[in-house]
């Protein structure tokens, strides 16, 4: 037990230090947490100046904490999902969201096929390069002060659309990768997933008053236990019948989104989310073998360049859909370039499917992890840095657009 506790302590302290360093550099903490995982984990680098760097193993505790991280991250996404905002602004959100999906997911499909990947692998790659990071994008908006400008509308509208799309996407993909194979098997698996999640979504929609009354608890600790317990239990049941636990947690979150508990959840449960989400990014780092990056370098380079351009373009078009000036439209694109947690959740899904016996993915799983980690490391930093130089970039690009 002593050795395990020390191991956990090393992990947490290393995460804290990396987070502090990232804050100093005005970068997102996500790449910092991943790098710490790579550094102290079992894969290379394994030692520095004779000192072992294989300090923390990928044990059951980290695996479970990381899984909780996914559940709580998606629970919060559901909690903050605003049906009202979506309905009020559905035409513009749908237009911007479709442009974003077609350009970026489409580019992912093109890249996957041209690198000779199977259709399933291509769909997974496309998902990874498509979806922006809500966490990094929102933080960027606040730090740049753009949150108080009109460009916040298309950025947040696009994120809302991506939230729905990722829920559907994860539901389908989770059924496909864990499935027994064969077209008819896949149809059944996807059918089961949609039946379960559709039922959950309906319950979430109609259970507002029940949720309101049931979770009206006097003490914060009981509130924390009940909410996290409910989300974890439903996610666990979903996973045990082959349905995406992440999407189940998303719908549990939406059940709370219309109640008066949202503010309390933000206060009481956000610290738990931050802790477990850190474990999720850390565990991704632990499982990453950086030596595999060499094998995906070409794919990675192509993906980084093309999907930076497609995100900038789709964002700029979304800005125009919202009637914004060229400068603000380009900012919309710049803000959305960062990819993060969702790309990694897709990669983690592939790894766990391969681990639970899907042989078709056995070779692809380490590749997709290396690719997703490399991609997120580059895109999270690149996205943040490009935004910091937004004035220079828009200053150069706007005259070209006006021509």
């Amino acid at each position, binding site marked *: 037990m002593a050795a395990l506790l020390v191991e956990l302590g090393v992990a947490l302290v290393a995460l804290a230090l990396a987070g502090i360093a990232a804050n100093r550099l005005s970068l997102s903490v996500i790449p910092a947490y991943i790098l710490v995982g790579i550094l102290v984990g079992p894969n290379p680098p394994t030692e520095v100046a004779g000192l072992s760097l294989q300090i923390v193993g990928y044990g059951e505790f980290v695996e479970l904490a990381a899984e909780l991280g996914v559940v709580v991250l998606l629970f919060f996404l559901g909690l*903050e999902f605003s049906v009202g905002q979506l309905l009020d602004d559905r035409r513009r959100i749908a237009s911007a969201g479709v442009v974003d999906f077609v350009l970026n997911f489409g580019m992912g499909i093109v890249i996957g096929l041209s690198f000779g990947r199977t259709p399933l692998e291509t769909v997974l790659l496309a998902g990874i390069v498509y979806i922006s990071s809500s966490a990094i994008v929102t933080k960027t908006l*606040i730090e740049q002060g753009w949150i108080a400008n009109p460009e916040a509308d298309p950025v947040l509208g696009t994120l*809302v659309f991506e939230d729905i799309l990722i829920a559907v996407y994860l539901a389908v993909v989770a059924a496909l990768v864990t499935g027994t194979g064969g077209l008819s098997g896949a149809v059944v698996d996807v059918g089961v997933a949609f039946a379960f999640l559709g039922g959950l979504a309906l319950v979430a929609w109609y259970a507002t008053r029940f949720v309101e009354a049931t979770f009206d608890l006097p003490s914060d600790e009981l509130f924390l236990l009940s909410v996290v317990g409910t989300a974890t239990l439903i996610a666990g049941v979903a996973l045990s019948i082959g349905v995406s636990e992440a999407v189940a947690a998303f719908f549990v979150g939406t059940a709370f989104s219309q109640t008066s508990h949202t503010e309390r959840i933000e206060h009481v449960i956000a610290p738990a989310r931050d802790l477990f989400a850190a474990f999720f990014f850390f565990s991704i780092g632990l499982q990453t073998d950086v030596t595999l990056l060499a094998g995906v370098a070409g794919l990675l380079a192509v993906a980084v360049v093309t999907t930076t351009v497609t995100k900038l373009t789709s964002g700029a078009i979304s800005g125009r859909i919202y009637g914004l000036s060229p400068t603000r439209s380009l900012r919309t694109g710049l803000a959305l370039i960062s990819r993060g947690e969702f790309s990694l959740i897709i990669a983690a899904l592939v790894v766990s499917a391969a681990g639970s016996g899907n042989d078709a993915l056995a070779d692809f799983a380490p590749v997709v992890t290396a690719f997703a980690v490399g991609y997120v490391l580059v895109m999270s930093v690149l996205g943040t840095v490009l935004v910091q130089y937004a004035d220079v970039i828009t200053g150069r690009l706007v005259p070209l657009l006006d021509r």
Partner: protein
Amino acid sequence: MTIYEAEVPGVGHKFEFELEGDARLVVIIHHDGKRDVYRRPDPDADSERLFSLSDKQARQFGSILEGAHFQPVDLDEVQVPLGDSLIEWYDIADLDEGPPIVGETLAESNLREAIGVSVVAIQRGEETIANPEATETVRAGDTLVVLGTREQQHEFEELLDA
């Protein structure tokens, strides 16, 4: 004056408050209670962050803005109503050509009989003469505290300006 409110997913709430012209104040209330206040001078300009406050600071600051601690009053218009009568303050100009009552005692100026107003106090520098005797002489630079109806006050003001 319109206030726009919107939910900001993952952040909290946003309020936009119209000022003069096209300017707007933009207030972001984070889920953790932090408030960021921005000002956007016109629709094409970028919002500038003015200040950030914690939840507690914002509540205290808000109550100051609201006037809970001090409600300002226009000092030139101070009037204390007493039934139909008002109490008003009159500064007697410190001039050579002062109003006719300067240099007269209250009895001599006969204000109560002629106009109906009563001089209830005289402020003279640091000193306040409450309920002055009829033999008290009005001097240039005095402030007279005068009780009377609105018409009587008006008449007294005309006498001073004469």
